[in-house]
Structure formats: structure tokens, C-alpha cells
């Protein structure tokens, strides 16, 4: 009676085949994501560390009585010419070196900002400077990459950027315990630089942040208002159909076209300053708007009509019914759409290239009107650079970008969970 018929056997078999196919598809997706993350993480995490080398600096050679530094302002210290003094401090590591060329090579194992680092140490500790202080200077990218093992030492000398003698110096310094591997705070706070060991993503983090804020300020109110009007108030006729089709089209326009629009209209006609988060934000808003409008309309549509009728039946005006009852219920969906739109904008590169946010910017922007880079553009810029140091920094920037994107998407999920109304 309960025999498994041939037909049923066939059906069960095909079901099993189907499930295996599905699981294979999911595994493929997971494996690719995993490979991507592993690859980026393994090549990027070392950018968060840097190599520093200790030298002894005899500040009494600048001013005999080092307690006098306390009376100087930061500006005055910055104006001091410590170039030769700094060089001499470095030479003192190896007092036996006489050859000028070798001296130059010794200097080159440090980043070019050694003078500034010696000054900054002075400014930071000017209240109680001893005669002789130990200062940790940032090593040059070549040394840094040797320390991180990214630079094979067994290559013939002429194929290496770092010379044998520099390696020798480095090994001696390391054996003397002068080499310290520390967390690379400047990487997170500084702007871009031509020197890979000094380049940081601080500028592009701030630039991206200012851009996203501009996008939020522009596209959230416009998007919500447009969606509420189209969904709740506009009568459906040819004209609103036309608008609706065009909003959907707008969502499908390649982002680089928005960049061209920004270049042609916002920069050239309105004359807003190029390379700035303000213009970037305006251009990205055009991209984000359709996402917000479509998501908001969908969540307005999901509010049961009975809620509107309930409010209208007690004599609420249409606007009251919509603003008091429908919009609050649609808000979680609208916010989720907004955050997803912002996440898209955060990762967008192409339109920013056209409005000049691809410029090399050393300073961290302090307002949306300052020239600035953004995280994805920074990735693009560094990915093109030849120095080994930029390779790890590219991956590290991608890590940060992915981190921010995951945070944004997480926020969207949490908002949806928290405010989801059940009826």
C-alpha cells in the first residue's frame, strides 16, 4: 500500500538534484566572498602597523638650557631650522661612517619627514625635555616592507630598491633593539602623500563622511517628500506615469553619466568648487534619490489602506491621515532604503572621478567646500601606484570601506527589526 512507485522515486531524485544544485550555488557565492575577504585582509592588515627606529637626539645642541623650550610657542619651534641638526642626530647612530654616499643611504632608511618628527617630539614634550632624548622615527617604505617580509632579501641588489648596505644598517639597528613595530595611527589621521610610509586615509575618510552627509541632507527630505506625494496624493494619470517611469529609469542610469552631469552643470554652469564633497554629494544624491523614492513608495504601499480609511473616517484631512498614520508606519522601510542608498553612494567611484575628487589631496578637509578625496577614489589612486607600500594601503582602505558598508547595512537591518510594526 505504501510502496514507493517508480514515478515517486523519480520525483524524489529530481528533488535531491535540485537541492544539491542550490547548495552548490550558495557554496560558490560563499567561497568567493571568503576568498575576497581573505585576500584583502591578508594583504591589508599590515598597513595598520609601521616600523619605527629609535635614535638619540641631543636637544641641548639646539638650545643649551633645554628647560627654555617650555617658554617657546609651537609656532616658534616649528620655525626652527633643525635640518642639519636632525641629520647629525641620525649620523650619530653610526659615527664611523665617513663616506657621503653611505651617509645619504643611512638617511634614506628613514622617511623624509625625520626633521618634522624630531620637531613634533619636541613640541609634544617641551615642558620637560631632557638633554638627550630617544625619538622613534618612521622608517622609509623600503625598510618597512623588509620588516613586514613583503620585500624578498634574496633578490640581487640591482633589482632591489634597498641597497645591501642599508640592509646591513637595518640589521644592526634591529639587533640593538632599536626597531619597534607599532600601530600606525597616522594612517588613520593623515591625508594622502607621495611617500607610501606617510600616506594616510584620514583625508578620504573625512571626505567620504562629508560627502555622505551632503547626500543625506539633500536626498532624504527630497526623496521622502517626492515618494509621499507620488504615492499618496498624486492622481494617477499620464503625467504621473511618466514621472514614475523616469524615476525607475534614473535608478538604472550608469553612475558615470551623473558624473558628466555634475561636471557639465554643477561645476561649469553653477561654478561650484571642483573636487569638493559638496559637489560629490550633489552628484551622488542624484543617484541615491531614485533608490530612496522607490523604497519609500514600496513601504508606503505596504501600509494597509484600512489605516488611511480609519483616519479619514474620523474626519482627518488627507494630509493628516498620511502624516500622522501612514508615514510613521512607512518610516522604517524608508530609512532602510535611505541607508542602502547611502551605502551605494559611499562605494561609488566613477562620478567622483569626473568632478575632480580624484585629485591628490594632502590636507584633511575641514568643510564640504575643501578639496578632498573619498575612500573608493583613494583605492583607485593607490591601486595605480607602483610602490610596494601602496599595495597594502590599498587593501587596508578596502577593508575600511567594507567595514563602513557592513556597519551601514547592519544599521539598516537593526532599524527594520526594531521599528517593524505588526498589525
Amino acid at each position, binding site marked *: 500500500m505504501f510502496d514507493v512507485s517508480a514515478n515517486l522515486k523519480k520525483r524524489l531524485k529530481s528533488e535531491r538534484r535540485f537541492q544539491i544544485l542550490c547548495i552548490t550555488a550558495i557554496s560558490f557565492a560563499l567561497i568567493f566572498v571568503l576568498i575576497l575577504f581573505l585576500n584583502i585582509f591578508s594583504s591589508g592588515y599590515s598597513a595598520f602597523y609601521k616600523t619605527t627606529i629609535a635614535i638619540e637626539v641631543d636637544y641641548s645642541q639646539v638650545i643649551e638650557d633645554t628647560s627654555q623650550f617650555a617658554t617657546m610657542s609651537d609656532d616658534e619651534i616649528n620655525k626652527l631650522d633643525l635640518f642639519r641638526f636632525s641629520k647629525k642626530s641620525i649620523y650619530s647612530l653610526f659615527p664611523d661612517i665617513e663616506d657621503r654616499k653611505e651617509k645619504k643611504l643611512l638617511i634614506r632608511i628613514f622617511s623624509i619627514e625625520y626633521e618634522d618628527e624630531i620637531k613634533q617630539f619636541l613640541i609634544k614634550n617641551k615642558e620637560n625635555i631632557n638633554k638627550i632624548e630617544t625619538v622613534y622615527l618612521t622608517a622609509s617604505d623600503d625598510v618597512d616592507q623588509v620588516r613586514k617580509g613583503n620585500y624578498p632579501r634574496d633578490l640581487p641588489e640591482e633589482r632591489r630598491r634597498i641597497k645591501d648596505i642599508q640592509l646591513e644598517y637595518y640589521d644592526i639597528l634591529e639587533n640593538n633593539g632599536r626597531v619597534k613595530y607599532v600601530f600606525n595611527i597616522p594612517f588613520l589621521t593623515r591625508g594622502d602623500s607621495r611617500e607610501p610610509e606617510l600616506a594616510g586615509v584620514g583625508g578620504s575618510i573625512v571626505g567620504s563622511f562629508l560627502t555622505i552627509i551632503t547626500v543625506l541632507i539633500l536626498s532624504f527630505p527630497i526623496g521622502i517628500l517626492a515618494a509621499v506625494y507620488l504615492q499618496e496624493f498624486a*492622481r*494617477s494619470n499620464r503625467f504621473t506615469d511618466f514621472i514614475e517611469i523616469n524615476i525607475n529609469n534614473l535608478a538604472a542610469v550608469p553612475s558615470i553619466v551623473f558624473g558628466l552631469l555634475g561636471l557639465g552643470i554643477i561645476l561649469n554652469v553653477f561654478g561650484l568648487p571642483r573636487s569638493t564633497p559638496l559637489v560629490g554629494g550633489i552628484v551622488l544624491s542624484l543617484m541615491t534619490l531614485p533608490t530612496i523614492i522607490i523604497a519609500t513608495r514600496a513601504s508606503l504601499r505596504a501600509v*494597509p489602506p*484600512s*489605516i*488611511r*480609511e*480609519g*483616519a*479619514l*473616517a*474620523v*474626519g*482627518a*484631512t488627507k494630509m*493628516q491621515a498620511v502624516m*500622522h*498614520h501612514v508615514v510613521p*508606519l512607512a518610516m522604517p522601510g524608508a530609512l532602510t532604503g535611505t541607508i542602502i542608498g547611502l551605502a551605494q553612494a559611499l562605494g561609488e567611484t566613477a562620478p567622483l572621478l569626473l568632478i575632480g575628487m580624484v585629485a591628490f589631496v594632502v590636507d584633511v578637509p575641514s568643510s564640504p567646500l575643501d578639496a578632498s578625496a573619498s575612500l573608493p577614489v583613494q583605492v583607485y589612486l593607490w591601486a595605480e601606484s607602483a610602490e610596494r607600500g601602496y599595495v597594502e594601503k590599498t587593501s587596508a582602505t578596502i577593508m575600511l570601506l567594507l567595514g563602513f558598508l557592513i556597519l551601514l547595512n547592519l544599521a539598516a537591518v537593526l532599524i527594520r527589526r526594531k521599528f517593524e*510594526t*505588526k*498589525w
Partner: protein
Amino acid sequence: MNKVKISAKNIDVFYGDKQALFDVSMDMYEKEVTALIGPSGCGKSTFLRCINRMNDVIDICSVKGNVSIDGHDIYDKSIRVESLRENVGMVFQKPNPFPKSIYENIAYGPRIHGMANSKTDIDEIVENSLQKAALFDEVKDRLHQPGTGLSGGQQQRLCIARAISVNPEIILMDEPCSALDPIATAKIEELMNELKKEFTIIIVTHSMQQAARVSTKTGFFHLGKLIEVDSTETIFSNPGNQKTQDYITGRFG
């Protein structure tokens, strides 16, 4: 005999090209329950929604003819639909409390109409409305909990209380018990008997027994036409029209 409260004359309703009501004329009397019965899709709900102009909400719907309340034409340009609905409350087929607290559900109407300024006034309206809807004793300890947490029957009484809160003269009920169990239905029917002392009630119902139990007058609709309207007793014992006879004896519908 009560006086005529609502008078509908030659009502035609169209949804786009489709005509849903054909030349319906009917008087409804003050402080009575008038029941509208008929098979599904016969236009009785459409007719009900003409009385508080709920059909205005639907873009493609157009109404021709004349509905007057106390002699005032409610489709006149000078009538604001919001103040009409303040006087003509409505209870829907499926309980639709706002996803807010019980208190807020009832306070909403009075608040938007500016009927009460102080919190004590609103408290009073809330309590009164709940009392009249025979719900107060069940919910007085949880006024600030969500209205959607109540049982179906309680939710429907909450909606009745919400309709009452703005002091209407007429309450329209669109199959108010179709989503409720028999006990909750009995409670609503009992409530209607109370409410008709104060309000004019028009109820659309699928249940002929319900119409027989609660109403004084009954109108029978079929395919968009009002076939017959008379006292409930006559309709159920001695209808004048063969179609009415067939419907109430269960031969179709």
C-alpha cells in the same frame, strides 16, 4: 415614526466605465438601525460609502445623484468632507485600530478637530467613548497599551468607540461582524441596540439573521439596484418582490 435623517435620491455610482449602483433612492430614519442586505457585489457597501463620501478616496469612482442629511446636500461644493465625516462616523469590515495605544486611538479624532484642549477633557472623551462602546471595563487598566493587542471583538468595539469619540449623529457600519466569532458578534449587536437610542445607524450585513435581529428597516440590493426597502418585519415575513423572497429563503446569494 421618526423623521427622515438621510435621504438618497437617484444615486448612480461608476467605477471607471463600470456602473456599480443604478438609480438608488432610499430614506433612512433618525435613531433607527437600517440594514442593507444582498449578495456579494450587489453595491450595498458602495451605497454605504456614499453617505460619508468615502468613495471620494477612490480616484476612478464617481457618484451621481443626491444625498442629503437633515436636508443638506452633502455633495454640495460648500460642504467640507472632513466636517461631514465628523458627523458621519464609520466602522469597517475588518477592525482597523491605529497601531497606537487604546487611548491614542480614541483621542486622535477629538484632537484633530480641536474638540478638547486640556488633557482632562480628552481623558473624559476617551472614557465616555469607551463606556458607550461597552469596552471601558475591559480595558481601563491598559489604556496605554497598543490597541492592536486586543481581541478581534474588542478591536471592533474600539473602532466603534473611535467613531463615537467625535460626536457623530450617524454611524455607518460596513459588515462590522464579518470577522468576529458569534460571542463577539452578539456583544456588538447588543451594543447597537444601545447606540440606536443616540445615533442613526446604517449597517451593511451578510447575515440575514443579524439584519432581522438588529434593524428596524431593511433594504435589499441586487446587482446594483435597490430591489425593495421596507420595515424589517415585512421584508422577512412578507416581501413584496420575488427576488427578495428568493434571497431571504436562501435560494440564491
